[in-house]
């Protein structure tokens, strides 16, 4: 694959730093004391059970919501993150009235720019969607829709890509294909991916942070051996897997200890 042109299009991909984040929703604190670094040009996975505030964290990083207080987020070498991130959600968020190609060009259309049609066809080809360029989202399968969402993310060409469980709604085979495709195409970027699947984190993440409900100070990141894209069933990763599961399980605040007993 000739990817020199597209993938090196972002000359500098900053890393991302979060210090002492305290996040919440409607004034209710979800998690606190969260600090982590997302190294440049690598995948960082944020792993945690449902409802710990992973999505809130990602939306805060994207500049969509304000943190409660005390949080210090910056892209290394840049003043703020809001202009340098692309966002990919669990739902494909394709606009049903636009064709696949027009959905890929959404960012340019929204900014009133003329979409670069050569770049669109290039990206559609890389995501294997050239044949489906004129299809409406409802005519596409779940995997195809997520491919278009990935193409739309690539089209934005931002140095930092934030992903919120982008593959969780897909079947196992399609998920594996899309993980691989995303990993290849987003290679030169700084990716922060939220997931609840330890295997996905082990497959893709250079760094894995376990996010827990309540206080997250003192949480240690995992750096599984070998280069991503790993085979998560590799016996050498068993240690990392158990460590991650243990970290997901402890420590408990008094209230969710009650939940676990119930």
């Amino acid at each position, binding site marked *: 694959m000739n990817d020199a042109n597209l993938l090196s299009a972002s000359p500098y991909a900053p890393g991302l730093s979060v210090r002492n984040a305290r996040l919440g929703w409607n004034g209710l604190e979800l998690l606190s004391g969260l600090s982590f670094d997302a190294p440049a040009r690598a995948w960082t996975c944020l792993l945690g059970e449902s409802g710990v505030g992973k999505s809130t964290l990602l939306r805060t990083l994207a500049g969509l919501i304000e943190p409660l207080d005390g949080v210090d987020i910056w892209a290394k070498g840049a003043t703020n993150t809001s202009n340098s991130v692309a966002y990919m959600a669990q739902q494909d968020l394709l606009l*049903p009235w636009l064709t696949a190609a027009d959905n890929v060009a*959404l960012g340019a259309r929204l900014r009133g720019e003329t979409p670069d049609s050569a770049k669109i066809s290039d990206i559609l080809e890389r995501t294997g969607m050239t044949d489906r360029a004129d299809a*409406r989202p409802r005519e596409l399968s779940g995997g195809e829709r997520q491919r278009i969402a990935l193409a739309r993310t690539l089209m934005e060409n931002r140095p930092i890509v934030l992903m919120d469980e982008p593959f969780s709604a897909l079947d196992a085979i399609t998920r594996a294909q899309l993980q691989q495709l995303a990993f290849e195409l987003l290679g030169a970027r700084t990716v922060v991916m939220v997931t609840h699947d330890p295997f996905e984190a082990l497959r893709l993440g250079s760094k894995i942070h376990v996010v827990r409900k309540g206080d997250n100070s003192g949480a240690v990141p995992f750096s599984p051996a070998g280069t991503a894209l790993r085979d998560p069933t590799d016996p050498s990763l068993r240690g990392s897997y158990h460590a991650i599961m243990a970290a997901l399980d402890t420590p408990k605040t008094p209230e969710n200890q009650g939940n676990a007993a119930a």
Partner: protein
Amino acid sequence: MSAIVKPLIVFLGLMCLWQAAVSVFEIAPFILPGPIAVIEVAIARADTIAEHAGTTLVEILLGLAFGTLLGSASALMMAYFRQARSWLLPVLVVSQAIPVFALAPVLVLWFGYGIAPKVAMATLIIYFPVTAAFYDGLRRTEPGWIDLAQTMGASKAAILRQIRIPAALPAFASGLRVAAAVAPIGAVVGEWVGSSAGLGYYMLLMNGRVQTAAMFAALFILAIMAVAIYFAIDATLRRLVAWQPEADPATFS
């Protein structure tokens, strides 16, 4: 094909029943004329009825146009400016709470006996369904789309124009369908209160002269007009929101 044939069979069946009832029970023609008598009168007075129907049609279409414009503008303002919401929402509710039937005499007093008060009446009667449906649609935009657009650096106006308005079109279409169905009511009520032309006027006139068959003929034409307007608008709207899956919530994801 059967979409046209089936209602036609029902319609013809009802006509036969009607004619049979009139013939069997020997109902006086000034109480209930049979459909054959009605059709005969309709043909005999085709010119007069067509003239009145033209007036009513213009009133309905103008009312639809003004009501849709006003309603869409109100909905867009309420969706775009937070301030506009608190100002316009009470107006919206009041516009529906006061029955147009009660306003009709005042409108005739203000705008005279021409077509203006009827257009005003039709406008008033459809303003609420259009505004309410469109505003509701504009408010219910998928939040993820707005998140995505914001990370892409879209302006508020671009989000409204390219995401919220297209997303609200199905809701807008529902409002417009209701409007198309009720607009003739506004026009005809206006004509009843005071006018010198239109199907409503003609029906009152024929009623006073005990020419019941002519009255039914006018009613018949009014119904055909209303149905035609409804289906014309419905077909246009269907083409406009062809991307929306129909009656199948399972395909939403």
